């Protein structure tokens, strides 16, 4: 739909105004909404915030945007497809984040200030995060030790890895 004011740009601001019982509908582009005065500009903001997300999501799924190779179309855990996600704007389960991460990062960069959490880390999950990082590091050291034929060092590293794995279930991913 084109803006009813300038009839040039697409109407992105839609609202109904009721003045003493008289109902008028407005379909304006953002520029004309701004010119209509601050009252309407604020309406535009409210509208944009609510629809920002689904707008972005639909842009993501538009045919022009190439799908990253190997990106799954569906979350294996809950069965939600990326298309369904773009339609309702909600993920189906916590694993959806990893299932869709290839497409998610550009989206997060746009709707958030970055795609990496810098805030609070829960104590318990934090320990796991820490242990996982340590495991990764130990495995790399083990490979290096084996390559350099430092077998005594390698045995020590292997024991440490086993200890950590049994403590945290050796759980990978996420």
């Amino acid at each position: 739909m084109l803006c009813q004011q300038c009839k040039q740009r697409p109407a992105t601001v839609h609202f109904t105004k009721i003045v003493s019982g008289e109902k008028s509908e407005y379909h304006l582009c953002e520029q004309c909404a701004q010119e209509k005065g601050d009252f309407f500009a604020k309406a535009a903001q409210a509208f944009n915030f609510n629809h920002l997300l689904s707008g972005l999501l639909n842009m993501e799924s538009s045919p022009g945007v190439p799908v990253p190779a190997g990106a799954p179309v569906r979350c294996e855990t809950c069965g939600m497809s990326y298309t369904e996600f773009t339609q309702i704007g909600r993920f189906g389960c916590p694993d959806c984040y990893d299932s869709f991460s290839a497409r998610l990062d550009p989206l997060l960069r746009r709707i958030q200030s970055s795609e990496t959490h810098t805030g609070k880390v829960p104590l318990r999950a934090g320990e796991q995060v820490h242990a996982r990082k340590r495991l990764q590091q130990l495995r790399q050291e083990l490979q290096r030790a084996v390559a350099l034929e430092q077998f005594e060092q390698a045995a020590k590293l292997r024991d440490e890895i086993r200890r950590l794995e049994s403590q945290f279930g050796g759980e990978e991913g996420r």
Partner: protein
Amino acid sequence: MSLGEFLQHGMSQWIRGGGPDDDIIVTSRIRIARNLQDIPFPVLQTDSHADEVIHLVQQALSNKSVQQIGRFEFVRCSDLSALDRYMLVEKHLMSRDLAEQVKHGAIALTDDEVMSIMVNEEDHLRIQCIMPGFRLAEAWQQANRVDDALESLLPYAFHERYGYLTACPTNVGTGIRASVMMHLPGLVLTGQIHRMLSAVSQVGLTVRGIYGEGSESVGNLFQVSNQITLGETEEEIIGNLSSIVHQLIEHERAARRALLSQNRGDLEDRVCRSFGILAYARKMDSKETLQRLSDVRLGIDLGIIRGVSASILKELMVVTQPAFLQKYFREELTPGERDIRRAALIRERLRLDDTEVH
């Protein structure tokens, strides 16, 4: 029950109490979104998933470590009447979505209703702390303590890179929404409000009217909140919001001073006229109620009206809403009947105070 008793009873602390800068800041609110590992988000929940979440949360809340921080009363939405659910909505403790989520929803509340936890709303848990006045940091501390205690008992869904995982990507990361409800009649009456608000929305904050449909803001009440939840720490988010709110407070105070010095006659007329209407009208719709209450509260803050308690705006903005009205009058009321009863309730409330109009 008399109105006085009614107001004493079912009222949250944010409605009765005061706090710093409460001539402008109505409430400070922190809401934290959390989810449990390995259970689908509420949008894909089956009955048994919902029961599992409810069971886990209820169990955690009855644990000693949580009870030391707050004694929560836990209730499923299906055990509340529609009226009770909508009264919680009107007290800003429950979302409209949860009130309608009768089958899977639940809510936990502390006695003073400062802390509340919505269960199976959009996320498994929505931990809320709401306080009167400008107390964002304190509200965050309190919500954070409850979150810590729950985290030691519940397997939260947490991602190394994305942080706390939420159903909607606009909440992921910290999962925090900090918001402040502001009464800004000075900025509205001096025509500065839209300039201010559009400036605020350009620094990563969201502003919306509290009441009124869509674009409209009724009663000069605005909510300012953070938009970004990922990539900033909780302290940064609260700090940014606080510094903007401080500036809005200064501008509002300056606007009120300007109105008093340059437009005193008009201002007094407006305030007293609204007081007169509230005191004598026989029919009041909710929109006019909020507008008149805003004028009266401004009159109280500026010393034009004396003897009326400052909490009247908060009290009446809650109890003149449909569910509270019907609870107080103990009958179902059509919108037309509500307008008559609303006017009666307001007159009664004003008679509880010893008013002087100067």
